[in-house]
């Protein structure tokens, strides 16, 4: 009996629990994805209880692949997640560098910057779409209305008026529309997650070597080339972590999509699963398996990337 046996025995309960935790739902999803299973049907009542006699093979997968929005949902997932990642990393880097210098009131500014992260996703979406982006009663509607009023007023001035008469009347943008709903979601999620990036970058900026920077200054390096050649490489690891954690979270966005446009013009795989669970559990399970596959493909790339930056 080697000295590894005891630790292994002690680990067993936890490992078994984790296995059950993961395997039971996964195997049920797999099973449901290969049978006909609906919550209610007046035409085929036998499909209402899960049973092997309703075996369908890959039929559910085929149905999902042919469904109206499947490919759109995958494309759109990738579009939303990438946009949010780019925005949060760029904004997060900028803000973290800005507040790294000490200035009066830095503590308060930091607390204020981080607070969006503590707003619940659903609340975030409701606030943004109703109070900020609404084209009539929201901040956007009021702002566009006042700008139009102001231009109208300026048109009466003797000389300037000619110039302002050339200006168009601005139309507010509806962010619940099919064409714009994805941008609304990107905006609100980026607002919420930029503080997370700032937080991570801020802590690792504090470990940056000041003497290296001083040497660079003496050698005549501009602040911009110091930022590109010293700060950004120093932050490679935290950037990889921010990208990985955020991709995991944003692949499963749901609340914001539901609240902004109910899937009109903006969908991802979790939302598609939600639509199938109205009734068709078989199709919902097949979509779930596709989502697991997609998440794994992305996870492999991300783990490689993070692994690489940790090795360096």
């Amino acid at each position, binding site marked *: 009996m080697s000295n590894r046996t005891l630790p292994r025995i002690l680990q067993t309960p936890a490992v078994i629990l984790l296995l059950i935790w993961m395997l039971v739902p996964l195997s049920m999803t797999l099973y449901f994805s290969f049978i006909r299973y*609906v*919550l*209610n*049907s*007046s*035409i*085929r*009542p036998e*499909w*209402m209880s899960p049973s092997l006699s309703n075996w369908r093979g890959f039929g559910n997968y085929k*149905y999902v692949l*042919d*469904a*109206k929005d499947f490919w759109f949902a995958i494309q759109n997932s990738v579009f939303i997640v990438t946009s949010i990642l780019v925005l949060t990393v760029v904004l997060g880097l900028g803000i973290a560098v800005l507040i790294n210098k000490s200035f009066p009131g830095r503590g308060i500014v930091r607390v204020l910057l981080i607070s969006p992260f503590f707003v619940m996703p659903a609340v975030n979406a409701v606030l943004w*779409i109703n109070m900020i982006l*609404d*084209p*009539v*009663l929201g901040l956007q*509607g009021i702002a566009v*209305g006042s700008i139009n009023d102001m231009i109208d007023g300026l048109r009466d001035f003797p000389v300037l008026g000619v110039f302002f008469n050339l200006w168009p009347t601005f*139309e*507010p943008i*509806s*962010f*619940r*529309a*099919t*064409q714009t709903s994805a941008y609304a979601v990107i905006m609100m999620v980026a607002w919420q997650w930029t503080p997370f990036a700032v937080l991570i970058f801020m802590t690792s900026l504090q470990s940056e070597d000041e003497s290296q920077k001083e040497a660079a200054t003496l050698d005549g390096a501009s602040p911009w080339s110091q930022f590109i050649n010293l700060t950004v490489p120093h932050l490679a690891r935290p950037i990889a972590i921010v990208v990985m954690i955020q991709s995991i979270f944003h692949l499963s966005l749901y609340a914001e999509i539901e609240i*902004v*446009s*109910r*899937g*009109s*013009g903006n969908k991802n795989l979790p939302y598609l699963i939600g*639509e*199938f*669970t*109205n*009734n*068709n559990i078989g*199709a919902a399970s097949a979509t779930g398996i596709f989502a697991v596959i997609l998440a794994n493909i992305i996870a492999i790339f991300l783990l490689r990337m993070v692994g690489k930056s940790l090795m360096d």
Partner: protein
Amino acid sequence: MTSLRNTALGLAMGIASASVAAADGHTELTIAIVNNGHMINMQKVAEAYTADTGVALNWVSLEEGVLREQVTSDTATGGGQYDIINIGMQEAPIWGAAGWIEPLEFGAEYDVDDMLPAMRNGLSHEGTLYAAPFYGESSMVMYRKDLTEAAGVTIADNDSWDNVKAAAAAMHDPDNGVYGACLRGKPGWGDNMAFVTTVVNSFGGAWFDADMRPALESDEWKAAINFYVDLLGNYGPPGSEGNSFNEILALYNEDKCGMWIDATIAASFLENDNVAYAQSPNAGNPVGANWLWAWAMAVPTGSPNSEAAHDFIEWATSKAYIQAVGNHPDFGWGSVPTGTRASTYAIPEFQAVAKFAAAEMAAIESAAPAATDIKPYVGVQFAAIPEFPEVGSAVAQEIAAALSGAKSVDEALAASQAAADAIMSEAGYY
């Protein structure tokens, strides 16, 4: 560690006391309700019921969509979380047929014949009542009398759609923040499709043909959707594709809408004094242009407290309950649940405060949910089949895309037809 032990202890004691309570013979009912005004009020009015009978009531109040999801999966899988559930007119006949909810029978005092026939029919399957209506509604036109007079237009009962559009155009004044017509546009089978289906009905269209094949590319649908997109796109507020009942109510109460065609229940929330009512526009189709909806209470099959649940439903949908709300110090006659019983509309105190009562009752009585030659399914603004929510949501997104200009009406209807066809053939209809 201490706190953990205390929590565990507390939990154990909680479980122990719950089982003691059950052993004592105190009944506790868990009731899932939708979180709108009348139901929220019920929680308070029912305190008297607990005091009288000793039955403890445990309320779970959820948003409409969440409630539907929770209650469906709980009932379908026999979860048994709830003793009483709030369901709508779309679910009641289907769930009754599937044996998920128990048939309801009440004593003579309940006076089941007092129930409005449209409601009773809509909540029954093959003549058996499966859910008791708590409040019911239809749809009607609510418009600003001061604006129509200033614009020199009128809106009559069951007016033609052309006239309604002309009136909307005359009242439309976006520079001063007034929009001619505020209508539902937010995707959802119970949101934009509720209104859109009534328009389609009035143009003579239907969701499915006699073989239950979707008929969404018919001339009637094309005419109706073109009209809807034209009316709301040109004379509606910006952002209409995100507006449903609550959003439009907010706009209306900010004096931004000339007219609004929506649930009759809206009338009791309108703050402007110049509101007038008219029956929905119609081109003379027998299905009518009014929708019909009720939030009703049902008992899931196999509830251990089935008898107590029946008793509670009998009380909560009785004439006595209407009186209890009317005489309640916090509520009064303006807040009684309407649309269920003919006797409610005969109460003088109610007539005095509810100016919309006559219009509402007329709208409910003119709605015809039964299957006809035009449509093979039960339901006015929906089809009472289990697959409808899926079909309805898919089409709703396409109509919203047409409204926001991302697709043409023809493209949107072609995509709708393809999606609906896939869902119906998947479900085994053909």
